[in-house]
């Protein structure tokens, strides 16, 4: 569908941006198609970091001059391939703490339900341990994504030396990116929590037909998916530009790391609040900002 050569005029870029946000938002409605959106976002990062080597990604078509099938489906295939690779890499990094969160939440409250004083510390200890690990991962995740997008390899997600150097080189921009991320994550908290109060927000909701109620649910899902893609587009774009910049002063790197972790804790808090309001076990594992841009 899209293959940018050179820099198009502003109206053309705006139209393309709106089209990309629309297509990406629709793809984020389902976990399978969200893989395509994830791949497109990674390819977008690559094009931002290396515009000369990687053109702006398209959704469907391959590069001109390729064979007929590659031309017809090359972009889609690249999105799927890159999406699967990114998904696997992100899962590798995040599943250890998200799975522990899931287990700690279930086992902790299961223990409370049975008033099992003997095991009372296990749930909280698991959760805090997982959160400590999560904060370190979250602080590095934008740079791991950037490195993987540039290297186009799964192993890049575990190239810790490079990722650490990229994070250190980013300087104050690392906590800034964390701050923008946790602010942009707030609508996900709202999207998960607000349905709890749907009867107050939508007068007469309880008396509506189930079809009408489903219409409201579908509209909410579409808005959430569109927002998920748009916010991720912005964050990936920021991360790619930060990763492409020359290094900042590194001697403050430990401070920026600590500050990043503190800020990322706000995302953890948002997830916990959202889960308390409207529980969904999958949402421990899949948050648009650390795994899959699926609106859920």
């Amino acid at each position, binding site marked *: 569908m899209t293959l940018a050569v050179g820099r198009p005029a502003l109206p053309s870029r705006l139209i393309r941006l709106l089209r990309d946000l629309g297509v990406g938002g629709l793809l984020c409605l389902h976990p399978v198609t969200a893989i395509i959106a994830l791949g497109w976002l990674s390819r977008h990062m690559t094009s931002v970091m290396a515009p000369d080597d990687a053109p702006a990604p398209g959704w469907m078509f391959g590069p001109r001059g390729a064979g007929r099938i590659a031309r017809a489906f090359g972009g889609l295939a690249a999105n799927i391939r890159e999406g699967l690779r990114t998904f696997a890499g992100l899962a590798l990094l995040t599943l250890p703490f998200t799975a522990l969160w899931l287990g700690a*939440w*279930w086992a902790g*409250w*299961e223990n*409370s*339900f*049975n*008033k*099992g*004083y*003997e095991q009372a510390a296990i749930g909280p200890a698991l959760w805090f341990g997982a959160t400590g690990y999560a904060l370190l991962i979250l602080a590095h995740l934008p740079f791991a994504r950037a490195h993987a997008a540039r290297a186009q390899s799964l192993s890049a997600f575990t190239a810790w030396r490079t990722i650490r150097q990229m994070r250190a080189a980013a300087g104050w921009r690392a906590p800034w990116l964390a701050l923008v991320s946790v602010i942009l994550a707030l609508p996900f908290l709202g999207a998960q929590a607000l*349905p*709890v*109060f*749907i*009867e*107050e927000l939508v007068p007469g909701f*309880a008396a509506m037909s*189930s079809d009408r*109620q*489903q219409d*409201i*649910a579908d509209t*909410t899902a579409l808005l959430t998916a569109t927002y998920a893609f748009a916010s991720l587009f912005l964050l990936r774009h920021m991360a790619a530009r930060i990763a492409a910049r020359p290094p900042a002063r590194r001697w403050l790197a430990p401070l920026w790391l600590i500050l990043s972790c503190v800020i990322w804790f706000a995302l953890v808090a948002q997830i916990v609040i959202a*889960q*308390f*309001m*409207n*529980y*969904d*076990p999958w949402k421990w594992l899949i948050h648009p900002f650390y795994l899959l841009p699926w609106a859920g």
Partner: protein
Amino acid sequence: MDRRSFHKGAFATLAGAALPMPARAAPYTGPNVILVRFGGGVRRAETINDATTFAPYLRHVLAPQGTFIPDMRIAQLDGVNTSHAEGTLNLLTGRYLAYRDVGSEFLNDRLEPTEPTLFEYLRDAFDLPSHQVLLINGEDRPQEEFFTYGVADHYGIDFRSEMLSLHRFKLYKFAQILAERTADEPTLLDAQAQYDALLAKDPRAFAPEQSADVTAFWARWRAHYGDDGFRNPRGDRLLTALALRAITELQPRLMMVNYQDPDYVHWGNPSHYTRAIQVIDDGLQRLVEAVAANPAYRDNTVFVITPDCGRDANPLLGVPFQHHFNTASAHETWALILGAGVQAGRTIDRAIDQSAIAPTIAALMGFTATRAEGDVLSGIFR
């Protein structure tokens, strides 16, 4: 001595002097009433719906034996919340908004009744010692621990009920440990700290001492289960165990059992809700069987079983009943009244307000809840 300690001592002395109740009150000869709060907020779907109930004993065995009210409602009034402390006080006072906040914390209501409770009406009308008017409470619900009397100038502390809960047992236990002084110094220091912490949870300016009969009850409980809390039943099974022991040892004439555990579904595990309903259902069966086996209760006891509030039925949530945030469904409950003097096999097919429970219990027991606003369900009596 601070003001709180002074009040405690002074009122404990007054309360002690007031027991037993003045001779002017007549002896109580009416039926025993066991009010079961099928609590923690439950929906009709998982309790009284024929096809989907998780409480088969309640629905299929008990309901046909009494007067069944499938459509009980909590009024939609400004300020009326569908939560546990509020619902419990609606049941106990027969009024809405008959409480005041005494320093609520996040997720932890602290209310105290501002209108007389059934306990006070009963003990004013009849010569009953406090240990025969009982409230049985869960161990981690301090928000419902202090409903034993209303704080306004109606009856008050001399007409209170007694409370059976682990909170009360621990008060007894730590007081005993401190009095015995056989433990080592660190244990004594810890006991003192825990005793003080338990007292600090009571928001009232003064708190009554436990009566001699209840103290003896705890002594037997302690001898049986020990001090560590690892041997006694837990959760809502604990409430059943306390109620069964109370029936045998204290023979209460009015007893409210505040089941609570379905509320654990706030944290999102649906099985906590359905399992808790099953646990309450099992507890109901054990209570009914204990009553049938006890000559002091057999053919002379009425069960009133009703939730404190409903829960949400929100199709947009993964767990539609996770909360009870004042939705229409959270205002929908039910009630079952069965036993001596109550019509069996009857279903009331109109909506009944929750405030009817207190005046109806009062009528069953032969007194009037004068400040209750609900109507007596006189049609249910044989």
